[in-house]
C-alpha cells in the first residue's frame, strides 16, 4: 500500500529526515517510535502533504501512485488520513457541517452519491457511540473549546466517518488520560481490517498496549535505526531511547 524510499526532508534550512525507507502493506499496523525531535511527526506530516516541508530526495508510492505529486486534499480523498497531534480550532464552523463536507468531498471523489442531512446524521449516530461523542460536540464549532481529550476523540471520530485506507495517528495518545486512551484505541481497533493500514506515531509504549502493532520502528535523528515486532516497544520502554541512540547501527526497514 505504502512504499517510502530514501525519503529526505528539510524544513526551512534544517535537515530533518535523512533517508527513510518503510514498506507498509494492507492489513498492517506499524508503530513509529522515537525520542523528541527524531523526526516522527515530520514523517507523519509529510505523508499528509503539509506545505511546511521540502522533500529533497526519495519517493513515496501509495497504492501505485506518486504520493508526493498529489495535493493534500487529493491524498485525503484517496484515503490518506492523519489524526493531528494538535487539532486546530475553526471558529464559527459547525463541527457537524464540517464533517458532512468532508465525508461528501470523499464520496463525490469516489463517484458515490453524496449524503443528505438525514443520511449523514444516521452515519454520525452509528459512529458517535463508538467514541462516546455526544450531540453537543457536534453542534459546537470545530474543536473550539474542546478539551484535549475531546479534540483527540474528535480526530478518531473523523477517521471512523471517513474510513481511510491509510491512517496516520500523530501522537494521538499525548495528553490523554487512561479512559480516553481506551476509547480512542477502541475506535482505532474497530477500523483494523485486511484492506486498511495504520501508522501509529508515538513517544510512549503505553498506547501500544491497546493498539497492538505488527511492526515497531525506532526513529532517531532522521533515520530508522531499529525495526522489529511489538516486543521492541517493550524493550524500549525498559531500556529507554538512550539504548538505541548510543548502541545501534542504522538499518533499512
Amino acid at each position, binding site marked *: 500500500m505504502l512504499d517510502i524510499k530514501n525519503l529526505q526532508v528539510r524544513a526551512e534550512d534544517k535537515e530533518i529526515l535523512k533517508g527513510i525507507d518503510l514498506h507498509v502493506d494492507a492489513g498492517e499496523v506499524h508503530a513509529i517510535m522515537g525520542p523528541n525531535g527524531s523526526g516522527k511527526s515530520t514523517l507523519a506530516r509529510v505523508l499528509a502533504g503539509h506545505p511546511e516541508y521540502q522533500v529533497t530526495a526519495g519517493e513515496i508510492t501509495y497504492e501505485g501512485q506518486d504520493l508526493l505529486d498529489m495535493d493534500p486534499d487529493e491524498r485525503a480523498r484517496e484515503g490518506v488520513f492523519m489524526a493531528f497531534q494538535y487539532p486546530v480550532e*475553526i471558529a464559527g464552523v459547525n463541527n457537524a457541517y464540517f464533517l458532512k463536507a468532508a465525508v461528501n468531498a470523499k464520496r463525490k471523489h469516489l463517484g458515490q452519491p453524496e449524503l443528505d442531512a438525514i443520511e449523514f446524521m444516521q452515519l454520525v449516530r452509528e459512529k458517535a457511540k463508538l467514541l462516546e461523542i455526544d450531540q453537543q460536540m457536534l453542534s459546537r464549532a470545530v474543536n473550539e473549546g474542546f478539551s484535549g481529550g475531546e479534540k483527540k476523540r474528535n480526530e478518531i471520530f473523523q477517521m471512523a466517518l*471517513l474510513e481511510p485506507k491509510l491512517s496516520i495517528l500523530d501522537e494521538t495518545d499525548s495528553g490523554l488520560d487512561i479512559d480516553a486512551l481506551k476509547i480512542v484505541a477502541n475506535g482505532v481497533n474497530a477500523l483494523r481490517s485486511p484492506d486498511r493500514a495504520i501508522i501509529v506515531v508515538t513517544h510512549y509504549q503505553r498506547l501500544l498496549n491497546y493498539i497492538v502493532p505488527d511492526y515497531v520502528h525506532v526513529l532517531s535523528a532522521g533515520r530508522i535505526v531499529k525495526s522489529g515486532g511489538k516486543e521492541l516497544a517493550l524493550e524500549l520502554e525498559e531500556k529507554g531511547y538512550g539504548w538505541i541512540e548510543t548502541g545501534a547501527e542504522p538499518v533499512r526497514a
Partner: protein
Amino acid sequence: MSTSTETIEQLATREYKYGFYTDVETETIPKGLSEEIIRMISEKKQEPDWLLEWRLKAYRLWLTMKEPTWQNVKYDPINYQDIVYYSAPKKKKALNSLDEVDPEVKRTFDKLGIPLEEQKLLAGVAVDAVFDSVSVATTFREKLASVGIIFMSFSEAVREHPELVKKYLGSVVPYTDNFFATLNSAVFSDGSFVYIPKGVRCPMELSTYFRINAKDTGQFERTLIIADEGAYVSYLEGCTAPMRDENQLHAAVVELVAHDDATIKYSTIQNWYPGDKEGKGGIYNFVTKRGMCAGRGSKITWTQVETGSAITWKYPGCILQGDNSIGEFYSVATTNNWQQADTGTKMIHLGKNTRSTIVSKGISAGHGQNTYRGLVRVGKKAKNARNYSQCDSLLIGDKCGAHTFPYLEIRNTSARVEHEASTSKIGEDQIFYLRQRGLTLEDAVNMIVSGFCKEVFRELPMEFAVEAQKLLSVSLEGSVG
C-alpha cells in the same frame, strides 16, 4: 509538494461577473456642476420649487466645504467638474406598467439576476430598479399599496406624496451634514421611498437594486424609509457597475426613521466594481447612512456585506432618541487586491435604556486595507445605556492591513460599554487541516471565512445570506498563498 502557491494564484484570475455595459440610448446632461446643472436636474424631474431651493442651498454650502481627509484611504483628487450628474435611459413615452420598460434595460437586470417581471421574482421580494440616475421599475407596488405601504421611486414620491417627503427629507441627514451628503443633497437624482403605515408589518422584503451603467457618470441616489408606529420592514439593497479604467463616484444618502415600537432592518450587499488587480478603476463608494430611532422601543438594524468598490467610506449609524430604543450594526467588509475600506458605525445614545450592538468583521487580502472606525456616544440624559462592540479582523497573506479606531464618548456614568477586538491571520494550519479532510483549497478558505462572518450572515434575510456567502467567496478568490 508545497501547497502550490501557483494554483492559488490561478484562482485569483476570475473576472468581476457584473462588469458588462449595456448600450442604451441615454439622456445625459453635460459634465460639470453649477447652479444651472442643478436647475436642469430639478426641471427634468419636474420638481416643486421648495425642493429646488433645498438643492441650491446645499450646493451653495458645498462650495464652501472641504473634502474630508481624515479617513484612512488614499486616492487622487476628484475633479467634480468632470462628472456627469444625470444620465437616464431615454424613454419613448411615460411608463404605465412594467411591460414598458426599455427591453435593453430589462435584459440588463435579467443578466444581473433581477428579473423585473413580478412572476419571475423571488417570491416575497419587491424590487425598485435604479439604472444610473433614475428608477426604471418598481414591482409589486399595487399589492403593497393595498395594505397602505408606499414603495416607489423617490421622484414619484416627490410628486405623489410631497407632504411626507418634505417632512422627512433631511430630518436624519441634514443637507449640512458632511461634504458628500451635501453634494448628494444638491444633485441627487433618484432612489427609493418607503412608508409603512401604523401597525403594518410589511408582507415582503423590499429591495432596491442600483446599477451604474453610463460612463463618467456619478450615482447620487437618496433613499428614505419611514416606519410608523409599530410597523416593521426589512429592506435590502444591492449594487453593481461595469468595469472601467476610470473611477466612478457613488455618493448616496440613506435616511431611516422608526417611530414608537417600529422596526427597520436595512441590509446591504455591496458589489460595486472594485477595480482590477492592479488597482485601476473601480467605484468610490462614499455614502452617508443614518437611522433615527425616534420613538420609544424602536429598533434599527444595519447589516452590510461590503465586497466591492475601490474605496468604501461609510458609517451607517443610529441615533437612539426614543427611550428603550435599539440600534444594531453587523458588518462584513472585505478588501482584496488594492481595495480600501474605512467603514464602521455611529451609535448615538440619547434616550434612556437605549442599547446598541456592533459586530464588525473585516477581511483583508492582497494589498487591501481595511479600517474599522466606530463611534459610541452616550449623552448626558441617556441613563442606563448599553453598548457592546466586537471588531474582528482576518488577514489573508502578508501585504494587507487591518486597522481599528474605536471612539467612545461617555457623558453618563450609568452607561455600560464593552469593546472587544481581535486580529487573526488565516492560518496555514487551518487550511491544511481542512484539506487533510478532503476539502479543496477554495472550499477550505470559504469555510474558514464564512465561519468568521457567521454572526453577520445570520442577520441577513435568508434568501440573501446564501447570495452573500457566494459573493464573498468570489471576491476573495485567489487571495490565499
